[in-house]
């Protein structure tokens, strides 16, 4: 049984998940598989790009954030997935050796009119580096099962 239900996502609540060390090897491995642009694969080539040195694919940062929040709370929740992502901003490059954390803020929570068994929680996720600088922000709305009401 999930521990967390829609009712547990109160607007204004903030939690921090992680840290997670991001290695050069995994940055290159992800890029080789999903985003093989030189700026994610090779130091010398990356230095000549706007990234100014090797940095993770932005999609990799999204996927790392997904894993951190899955382990952090989502797997023990009644999550029914998310219909999409409102916005992602890649604020600064994610460099090898960075220890990232995710700050999660509940922006809004509302019941579903059409589906009484679920509710929606709009969340702002901020990926932070070792110095608490913003690497990425992501806003999304989760569908979550509601706690069963006692008869």
């Amino acid at each position, binding site marked *: 049984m999930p521990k967390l239900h829609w009712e547990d996502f109160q607007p204004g609540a903030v939690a921090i998940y992680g840290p997670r060390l991001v290695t050069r090897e995994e940055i290159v491995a992800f890029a080789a598989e999903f985003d093989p642009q030189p700026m994610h694969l090779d130091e010398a080539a990356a230095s000549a790009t706007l990234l100014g040195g090797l940095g993770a694919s*932005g999609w990799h940062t999204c996927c790392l954030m997904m*894993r951190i929040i899955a382990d952090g709370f989502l797997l023990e929740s009644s*999550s029914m997935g998310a*219909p999409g992502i409102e*916005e992602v901003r890649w604020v600064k490059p994610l460099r090898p050796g960075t220890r990232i954390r995710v700050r999660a803020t509940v922006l809004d929570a509302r019941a579903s009119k059409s589906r009484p068994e679920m509710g929606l929680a709009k969340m702002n996720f901020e990926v932070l580096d070792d110095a608490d600088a913003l690497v990425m922000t992501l806003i999304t709305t989760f569908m979550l099962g509601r706690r069963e009401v006692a008869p």
Partner: protein
Amino acid sequence: MKYFEDIRVGDVTMTGRHTFTADEIKAFAQRFDPQLFHLDEAAAEASHFGALCASGWHTAVAWMRLMVDHRRGLVEAARTRGEPTATIGPALGLRDLKWLKPVYVGDTIDYKTVVTELRMSNSRPGFGLMTTLSSGVNQNGEPVISFISTTFVERRPEQP
């Protein structure tokens, strides 16, 4: 890759197709999105999805891989002709990413990308900003994903 000046709003790229197998859906989910409906057939059947389906991030990064491969082909062709090519990226971000339908085992997604906006970059004078709408449809013609993203594209160097 074309220089910023040579790109037009409305330009379409047929990015390519990808077929999602059960093994790769589970392998991706194991690494990045270990929710049971992306990992386990029986659990997925009992969920609101009804069957094993790919993580939405998996559906998105499959587009990225196809796009990078497509651009690489363009760069190689231009090099063969002895023409210079523009550098592209990184992206600033994306918005309105919609997972419209689940991607189930064996689905083949056909992706395309359309240029929707072009503007100069204030912060990087040698670059422009290209906004595109990317989308994917399954083998039944049903849209499964769409998103809008914005990326830097190099401007044509001034002639000496």
